[in-house]
């Protein structure tokens, strides 16, 4: 329904005064149409395409004279982006602060993307880091982490965390997270678990210190998913250590659930919603792990198996339906 219909309805019922009605009607008549989201999406897609195109361009022209021109242009652009972001930098603060220009955040993202391409190119062409591939990913990780805190940018923080995850050898992408993770390697699986624990610990510690508390959610979703994924992968892939991974998974799910409850009890309404994400993560990963263990060890026949899905499905639905109620009472 249009605001006008609702206004009339409320007016007829005498729920708004006549002056209010006229005032609201005037505001609604003149309310401009906001294209904030659309314009920023265009800008963001433009930045991604530009960085992507430049990244390809640099390799396209690798043997030509124009090549060095491309590299120089790119370096200058990268520096300009960082300079722009720095010029309009937000004030130094542990709280949530914003760049002084609406484009500061975007310049920073573009700068970071160009930096990645440039760094990759230097390694490709000049073998700058030699065989020390770890350096190639740890450098942007550290740089982005610093930038994220100085410029208060959650997007760059995500980039930093993912670069850290790449550093320990896990290829991780949101859209093929579950298929490309190389969790068949025990060393990588353990590194992922340790890294995610360190990141979660760091996120929690910084929250306690009241340093950029709005970053905690980014830490917990990225590192939390990595942790739970690595543990589930451990349960799936390593026969000898299955029980250990299973116990770890159970503990992690339990702690996520506790944290959801803690968050729900403490935080304001807007952040309460996020508590439900932790509850969802713990129930989904926990369910996958538990189901796998059950089918692996018990090898139930078809009847028991289907009955299991029927009953556990209902059970989890009931659990989630009443989750809010259990939260309020704890």
């Amino acid at each position: 329904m249009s605001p006008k219909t609702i206004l009339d309805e409320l007016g007829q019922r005498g729920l708004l005064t006549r002056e209010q009605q006229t005032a609201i009607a005037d505001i609604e008549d003149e309310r401009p149409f906001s294209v904030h989201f659309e314009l920023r999406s265009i800008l963001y897609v433009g930045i991604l395409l530009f960085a992507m195109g430049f990244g390809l361009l640099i390799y396209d022209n690798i043997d030509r004279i124009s090549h060095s021109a491309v590299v120089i242009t790119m370096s200058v652009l990268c520096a300009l982006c960082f300079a722009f972001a720095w010029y309009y930098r937000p004030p130094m603060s542990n709280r949530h602060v914003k760049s002084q220009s609406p484009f500061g955040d975007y310049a920073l993202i573009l700068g970071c993307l160009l930096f990645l391409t440039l760094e990759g190119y230097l390694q490709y062409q000049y073998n700058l880091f030699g065989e020390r591939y770890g350096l190639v990913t740890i450098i942007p990780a550290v740089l982005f982490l610093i930038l994220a805190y100085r410029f208060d940018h959650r997007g760059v923080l995500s980039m930093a965390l993912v670069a850290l995850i790449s550093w320990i050898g896990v290829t991780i992408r949101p859209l093929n997270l579950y298929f490309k993770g190389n969790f068949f390697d025990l060393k990588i699986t353990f590194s992922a678990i340790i890294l995610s624990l360190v990141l979660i610990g760091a996120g929690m510690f910084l929250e306690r210190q009241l340093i950029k508390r709005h970053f905690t959610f980014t830490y917990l979703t990225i590192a939390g998913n990595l942790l739970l994924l690595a543990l589930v992968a451990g349960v799936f892939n390593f026969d000898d250590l299955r029980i250990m991974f299973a116990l770890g998974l159970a503990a992690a799910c339990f702690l996520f659930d506790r944290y959801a409850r803690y968050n729900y009890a403490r935080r304001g309404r807007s952040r309460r919603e996020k508590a439900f994400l932790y509850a969802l993560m713990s129930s989904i990963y926990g369910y996958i792990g538990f189901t796998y263990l059950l089918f692996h060890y018990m090898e139930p026949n078809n009847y028991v198996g289907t009955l299991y899905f029927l009953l556990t499905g209902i059970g989890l639905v009931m659990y989630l339906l009443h989750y809010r109620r259990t939260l309020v009472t704890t």
Partner: protein
Amino acid sequence: MKAYNEEWIYNREIINQAQRWHREGLVNDSQLAVIKETYPVKFRDTSAFVEIGLFLFSIVAASGGYALLGLILSDVLQESFATGLFNILLGIGIGFFVEFLIRKQGMFRNGVDNALIAFMTALLVIGLNVWLPDETPVWSRCLVSLPVLFAVVWYYGDLIVMFGLISAVYTLVFDLLNDTASADLLIPLVMMALSAGLYWLALRLDLSLRSKKNVYWSDALNLAQWMTLSLLLINGNYFFVREVLSFLLKPDLNLRGAFSGASEIALSWLFWLFTFGIPLLYGFIGTTRKNRMFLILACLGTAGAIATARNYIGVLPWSVHLTVSGLILVLISIPLIRYLREPRYGFTDVPDEDSPKEFFLDAETVGAIQAAASTQPPKGLSYGGGDFGGGGAGKEY
């Protein structure tokens, strides 16, 4: 007779608007409290994240139950009549259960009811189709399914089933025209006409219902408008008609050759006109009528048109094309953002509540993660080129 309480849905709309005015300081606290009391909404309230979990686990439970019953009755279910009956009866049973959830548990799109309505509809449609003889053509199967899908949409106003309903209509028309003499020309034109007609229908229906203060099907009709406008755009696109449609019409072609070997199509000038004309038209409608749907589709359509043109007549290599396109987008959006700081011509850059801010932040993060993922060095080799996977809405949860 409808499944959900119509009055509550209507009240919810009023309260949402009143809350918005309240946030803007136009309605005071006590007034809002009175409004909430006058327009009660007694639906069960769940968080979006919990709803995702509820949907998933409801599907798990329903599938488990379906498989278990199928196993138990497997001796009886040898014949197609029995199988069909089994599906339909189970579907009806689930329907009764959903009725209980809605009436007694106050559910309204809480994940459980969405999942079970979709599951029920699937069972009913499968049951009916099992009864049809094996050689029944696809269009007749769609035709038989349509009344079921329509009835479910009418009763629940459900979005997933609305998606199925519209897909069934298009599949029906496609299959009917598939064997005609000039299918490759007829299909896109008929599909476009169909889309325009269905869009008009959905729009008129939506407007007339709203004017009667009926918002029960608003979401479903809104989805219908998005789908029909998108399909109008797609079916007019030269690349789609030349490559994708010709492949769909002759699926025996091998896949690798399909997207490059297709020959010139009839009336190609017309489809080139559509490729660029429809997005322009959408843009015009979007700006003059201030319609978000048209504006967004105009942007996507223009991107599609440019990509199509590059594919056939472009000379620039991909790298240059991407760089230039990206640069143009940046150079369009920055001045516009600066220009619209102050409202002009009824447009503004100030975010309002219609802008999905949260989604945007997420999209930004997902994109950043995709991009950063390319820092992974290939094992034992030098570092490779930038590989930025497509961003888009992540379906992680």
